[in-house]
């Protein structure tokens, strides 16, 4: 497989450079593309501009290739991270290009030698960015190909029809895409949006087309995962991570490890230590031998876990104004009823089921190939260029799927580990997979957050003031800029990061409700005690936990139904539609029940601009133990046009279940010096007996631009469950996770 890629690379580079390409004998590019003014006609609501990723890489040949048999290769810079996005891209291209799905024979995702640079695959933007770039590219290609056929037949393009890559004239003449362009370049720069199909004409979009990789996954019949990629001559590496963050290696006797059978090399550079061996097991054993032979100087002193909330609020931070009408505090002072509450959320781990893995190979002295499950092959190419001290153009990063990542986990760091070890064995590919404890202790977490909310009600129970402070660390320390790769921090010449930009703690901090008097500030701490970065939804899950819990508290103070109370402050019909759909399906009827069962509601519009989602959670609370069981989650969702309903449902179910796990069970723990979450016993997640039923209620809006859902699905879950616990028991838990101890404590105060 890798060898095919190598061969493919050469032809692809030549291809994009135009070398050896035949010039298409008649080019209608100019005249055809000038017709594109009716832009995006099939997508009302879409701006008549090119999707940003296509505008950034407007060469059509960068996105699509058609061979002489009419087989289509699609190139995307957006990668698969376990969400199964590939089939959605193929559906989009097949429909807009007018080929069958079977004619798309190859989808290349994320390869610095082959695919466009679409930055990171993150933020649930694969459809909105990557999918739309492909839609417009495919429409441009179709328009061009139909133009070629029209010229050949001497008829007006409008008289031609296309199906399965065959263009037909009214008189029965036909020509295939393969005949028109087969193997040649389009030589087109896309400058304006082509006309798009009306959604009613789509053959695949909107249908639950099955994912093509699934049979291979279920039978082991194809490698699928980078963990299964085996290259000729491949060696295995493992890294000895320090006992605590920042520890320095004082002395290391490598003699025993170096003599162990199968060990090829022990690598040490400052406090970075690793081993390369013939087999994985030999590498693992050698690292254990090194562990007992290493003497470390440890200086790390964590903020005690029970003081993290205070630390977040009192350490140095910069204060970002998110929203300030200037009237919130006076309105609060005048309010008939004031409500105030503090909430907090712990550090949450991505905790990928398959620890991070990479393969690196150094060839010809200074050329690198890195196989990686990174979220961004181009940013990683840049980051590795700093780490290795070679130009980015000497490094090829090829994406291959790993286990689901849910944000910035160890994927990029393990690339650095593999590269540093591969440097010691030139020519040989080195595969490194992190051990379970490596992943838990060294991945960057989603930051802990602390919230204070204040609200004011007038005498009739109307919400007249809103004051919201958020304390958090940044949600992005992704590599790209120098210094953000873990291994670099421990080198003899350490590569340390600069200050992190303040990103993502404010996601969904501004309520989607219409509030006349509101103030929202996000306070970013300057130094995070634990390593943090992008974690699924960034701050949105946390902010909405606070906001939507607080809306319930306000509704209770106003003696109003929590849903009816929210609807007073929403005048967006799409919001109302998801809320009505979910409350109807769930049989919304809150009120304490002697049985300890309860219902809770929460709503969000992701990033206040993306997917709409409304959730009802049904819980059962054991008053004696404080144990919360989530029985059923109902989730109604509007993502605009649904590309693949099965993919959407899968994301909705998975998001609901993972976020239920965050809500009930998850928190990273640490002692004085080291992270103590090291495995699935010390970092438990939701198990089969605890998993709720999930009912997904999709609302299709085929004429609205599609947006992603993988993150939005998670966002309302925490608040919906906490609100259900309140509904069931009258006890309000404002701190996640909702452990039995916390629920018992809240019950004793209720």
């Amino acid at each position, binding site marked *: 497989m890798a060898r095919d890629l190598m061969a493919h690379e050469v032809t692809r580079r030549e291809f994009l450079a135009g070398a050896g390409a035949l010039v298409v004998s008649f080019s209608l590019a100019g005249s055809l593309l000038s017709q594109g003014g009716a832009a995006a006609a099939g997508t009302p609501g879409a701006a008549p501009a090119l999707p940003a990723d296509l505008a950034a890489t407007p060469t059509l040949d960068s996105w699509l290739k058609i061979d002489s048999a009419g087989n289509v290769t699609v190139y995307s810079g957006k990668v698969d991270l376990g969400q199964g996005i590939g089939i959605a891209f193929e559906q989009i291209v097949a429909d807009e290009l007018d080929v069958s799905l079977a004619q798309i024979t190859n989808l290349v995702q994320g390869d610095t030698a082959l695919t466009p640079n679409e930055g990171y695959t993150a933020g649930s933007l694969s459809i909105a960015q990557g999918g739309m770039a492909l839609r417009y590219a495919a429409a441009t290609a179709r328009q061009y190909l139909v133009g070629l056929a029209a010229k050949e037949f001497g008829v007006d393009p409008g008289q031609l029809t296309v199906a399965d890559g065959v263009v037909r004239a009214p008189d029965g003449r036909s020509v295939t895409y393969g005949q028109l362009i087969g193997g040649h370049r389009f030589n087109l720069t896309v400058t304006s949006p082509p006309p798009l199909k009306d959604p009613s004409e789509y053959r695949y979009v909107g249908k639950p087309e099955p994912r093509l*990789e*699934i049979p291979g996954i279920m*039978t082991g019949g194809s490698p699928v995962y980078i*963990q299964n990629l085996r290259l000729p001559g491949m060696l295995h590496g493992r890294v000895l991570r320090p006992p605590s963050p920042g520890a320095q290696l004082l002395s290391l006797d490598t003699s025993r490890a170096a003599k162990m059978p199968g060990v090829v090399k022990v690598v040490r550079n400052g406090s970075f230590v690793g081993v390369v061996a013939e087999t994985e097991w030999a590498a693992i054993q050698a690292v254990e031998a090194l562990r007992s032979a290493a003497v470390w100087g440890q200086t790390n002193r964590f903020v005690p876990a029970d003081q993290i909330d205070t630390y977040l609020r009192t350490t140095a931070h910069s204060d970002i104004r998110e929203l300030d009408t200037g009237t919130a505090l006076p309105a609060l002072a005048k309010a008939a009823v004031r409500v105030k509450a503090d909430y907090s959320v712990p550090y949450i781990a991505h905790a990928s089921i*398959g620890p991070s893995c990479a393969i690196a190979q150094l060839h010809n002295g200074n050329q690198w190939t890195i196989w990686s499950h990174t979220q961004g092959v181009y940013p990683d190419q840049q980051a590795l260029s700093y780490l290795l001290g070679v130009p980015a153009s000497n490094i090829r990063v090829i994406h291959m799927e790993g286990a689901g990542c849910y944000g910035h986990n160890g994927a990029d760091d393990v690339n650095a580990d593999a590269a540093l070890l591969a440097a010691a064995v030139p020519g040989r590919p080195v595969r490194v997979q992190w051990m379970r404890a490596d992943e838990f202790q060294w991945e960057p977490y989603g930051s802990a957050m602390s919230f204070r909310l204040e609200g004011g009600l007038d005498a009739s129970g109307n919400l007249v003031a809103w004051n919201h402070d958020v304390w958090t660390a940044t949600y992005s320390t992704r590599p790209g800029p120098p210094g953000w790769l873990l291994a670099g921090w421990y080198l003899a010449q350490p590569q340390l990061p600069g200050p992190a930009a303040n990103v993502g703690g404010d996601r969904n901090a501004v309520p989607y409700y219409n509030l006349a008097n509101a103030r929202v500030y996000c306070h970013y701490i300057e130094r995070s005690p634990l390593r943090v970065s992008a974690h699924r939804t960034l701050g949105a899950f946390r902010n909405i936990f606070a906001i939507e819990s607080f809306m319930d508290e306000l509704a209770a103070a106003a003696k109003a139904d929590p849903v009816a109370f929210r609807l007073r402050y929403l005048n967006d019909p799409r919001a109302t539609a998801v809320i009505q759909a979910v409350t109807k399906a769930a049989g919304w009827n809150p009120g304490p029940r002697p049985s300890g069962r309860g219902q809770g509601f929460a709503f969000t519009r992701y990033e206040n601009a993306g997917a709409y989602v409304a959730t009802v959670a049904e819980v059962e609370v054991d008053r004696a133990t404080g144990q919360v069981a989530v029985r059923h989650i109902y989730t109604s969702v509007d993502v605009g046009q649904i590309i693949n309903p099965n993919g959407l449902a899968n994301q909705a179910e998975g998001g609901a279940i993972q976020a239920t796990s965050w809500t009930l069970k998850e928190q990273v723990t640490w002692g004085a010096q080291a992270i103590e979450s090291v495995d699935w016993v010390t970092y438990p997640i939701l198990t089969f007996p605890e*998993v709720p039923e999930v009912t997904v209620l999709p609302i299709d809006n085929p004429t609205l631009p599609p947006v992603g859902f993988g993150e939005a699905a998670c966002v309302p879950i925490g608040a919906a469950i906490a609100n259900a616990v309140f509904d069931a028991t009258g006890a309000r838990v404002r701190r996640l996770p909702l452990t039995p101890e916390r629920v018992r404590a809240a019950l004793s105060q209720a």
Partner: protein
Amino acid sequence: MAISFHLNGRPVSTDADPATPLLYVLRDEFQLNGPRFGCGLGQCGCCTVHVGDEAVRSCSVPVAGVAGQAVTTLEGLGTPEHPSVLQQAFIDEQAAQCGYCTNGMIMQAAAFLKQNPHPTEQEIRQALANNLCRCGTHLRFIRAIRRAAAQGVS
């Protein structure tokens, strides 16, 4: 001393250190894709294989422990062209997000269905209580197992 066993119906032998966990022998020597490293601690199920009829965590069994025994991996149940009934049920239900954990789900369920061909949903949940999935695909796995059980074959 080489260690011999049957792997997916064929006799094999390995010169690996007898203490090597079976998982690494299956993956690195026999190049199998199904069993995967998840934790190496017997906690997640990603590495599950059958030894005889029993589901076993290959990360926690030394290869010497399967000498003379019949080891079956995901590959031994079926192929992409001819999947087993249970594998086909997982395909039909599109029971994966990343799918990394599915080896464990299928192997655990296949062994379980032999003992209990017509389980209730609660029994399925209990049978998989020690198999972890981070993506939250549990409900699809349950549906796939029920679908296979309804067809009466594991």
